[in-house]
């Protein structure tokens, strides 16, 4: 293809530079969009989905019953569950019988899709707003049960469906 034939003004380059400068100058009085992340955090909307965590109920019990539906539904296979039996000596809601021995979410794989939260029949897993999870090692990013429960805290459960079973 032939090159376009440049006029004198084109070859001077000055009009182009001035046009570019004008675009820049136009933005100076406008509202700023750029944020000074990470010093300045984003304001996240209500339904923003971040990293999943596990919760306890108000009685301090792990809500997860290790049904493994989240493990099944997880598209990037980030969740790994090791089911176990709940300590039957525990007085409250002993009918649940099951509790995970370990619950591992690989945050290097998690895509924050929220399917685990949606599929959970026990409201035991929630997506919080944390999205920038970093670590020095990959193993640090494999969150185990204790860490996930610590991040999740307590979820007030108005129904407590196992109580009257």
């Amino acid at each position, binding site marked *: 293809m032939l090159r376009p034939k440049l006029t004198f003004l084109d070859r001077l380059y000055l009009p182009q530079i001035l046009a570019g400068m004008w675009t820049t100058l136009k933005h100076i009085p406008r509202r700023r969009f750029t944020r000074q992340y990470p010093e300045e955090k984003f304001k996240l909307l209500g339904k923003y989905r971040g990293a999943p965590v596990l919760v306890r109920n108000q009685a301090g019990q792990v809500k997860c019953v290790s*049904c493994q539906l989240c493990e099944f539904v997880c598209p990037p296979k980030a969740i790994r569950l090791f*089911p176990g039996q709940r300590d039957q000596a525990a007085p409250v809601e002993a009918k649940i019988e*099951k509790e995970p021995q370990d619950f591992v979410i690989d945050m290097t794989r998690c895509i924050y899709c929220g399917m685990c939260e949606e599929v959970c*029949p026990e409201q035991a897993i929630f997506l919080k707003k944390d999205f920038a999870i970093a670590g020095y090692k990959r193993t640090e990013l494999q969150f185990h049960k204790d860490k996930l429960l610590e991040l999740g805290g307590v979820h007030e459960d108005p129904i407590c469906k196992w109580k009257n079973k």
Partner: protein
Amino acid sequence: MSESTVNLTIDGRAVRAVPGTNLIEAARLAGIEIPHFCYHPQLPIAGNCRMCLVEVGLPKLGADRKPELDSQGQPLINFAPKLTIACNATVSAGMVVLTRTPKVIKARRGVMEFLLINHPLDCPICDQAGECRLQELAVDYGQGCSRFVEEKEHKPKRTPLGPKIMLDDERCILCSRCIRFMREVAGQDCLGFTHRGSRSTLICYPGQEPATNYDLNIVDICPVGALTSTDFRFRQRVWFLKETPSICPHCATGCNTVVWSREGVVYRQTPRDNPAVNQCWMCDLGRLNYKFINDPNRLTTPLIGGQPANWLAAIAHVAQRLNAIRATGGQIAGVGAARATTEELFLFGKLFQGLESKLLDSVPRSGASDKLLLNSDRNPNMRGAQLAGVAANPPGHRLAAIADGIASGAIKALLVLGEDVTSAGIGPDLLAKLELLVTIDILPSAMTQAAHVVLPGASFAEKGGTFINAKGRMQQLNPAVASPGQARPEWQILSELLAAVSSRALRDGQPRAANAWKKPAPDFPNLGKVFAAMAAEAPALADLTLESVGAQGVQIKE
């Protein structure tokens, strides 16, 4: 009369069935599924779940006992005014069965609603979820929400029925399959219902617990999660598990099984239907005999003199030592376990043919037999070992000669395939006399302690191959999981050893570095080749191929 059949119509499809066939089985012939809970083909009919209700009509007969015809020449059908349970109705000539009419669907929805009234919503913690008939049929015939506003009936949960089974009475839908199984098949009439109506409860007679060798079958036939196996309880959800058809290696019956595994871990074994062998049952001894597969102590690397080595070096070492011993006139003996597959035993026999030794045998292993499935011969493949020429007839009678040969110093090398010979008359004192003891095994034992070379093999769930059961039925194993570490199927080890022993480079008996030896291509690179060679030599296997053994096995010629 047994040869005669009757013609009937099920949902417009013509079906030909033997008289006496019930409608569930007849519909299955036509590819129509009639939902049911209490019916089980191997158990007496109870007819208490009412899920299999269908409309049944018979031809209207005139005064001359001939079917009356309508204006189109079709027989007139008289439908019964009420629905009939398909499990307890047998086929008859000209019968018309309708399984999907609105009346039938309505009845099934009603039955489901009643069943679900008191059924707890335990699915997230119930081990049956995923293979639960109630769950499946609730999808087909259940309602989204319950009309029942009263309190659900509460019954005992978590009742142990002996050490193997856990009973949850709330989940029980009172189908009575377990009661009938324990009474009719296992022969211990220990389960029954107490109370009435919705308070009916499955219990075990006081002071008793299921204590037969077949108890865990009631866990399989329980359509819901009322009976769960303590062994499998809460270990893994069934939908993650891969099903591999296999054969139980516990005794010479060779029950057909399914091995359930996930990511290299075997979680359970369940029986697989085979009318010629085990119907649909298996014994608990066989069922729970899978834990050695994932034993953390499994042998994972070849060992030469207790030191880890690679396969090339180990195979070359064994071949060189065998040739050297043979060159100096020492005898070589072998003991091949009748727990190995027929192909492995065939290659083992072939190896000894090449070494011109007839000092071969298997160790007989027996235990108490019951009248059902458990065979007194605890070797799954003694027939195969005899067919391959490894086991003597009767098995084990050459073992004494081998022991004497080792004691006198005539036998200088012993090859052992998957067997612990220290319990078969060849004690550690005799093993210490050998110049070369090679053992191919999967777990450490007194043998692997004493052996000069240890070659790690594969368990039954990690390899293909065939077993021949006590009745001469050849059945196939399938690989379900991968072997740990460098362990590999015994037939591969033997096939390479066979090639190495006859390789010229290793024949002169001069020690060489392992890397100076070029591995020859084995004659038997795959199992099909081994089987073909075996079928060519053994008249009992003439015209058979590995494929033709299939999922249900074949009876071999006597």
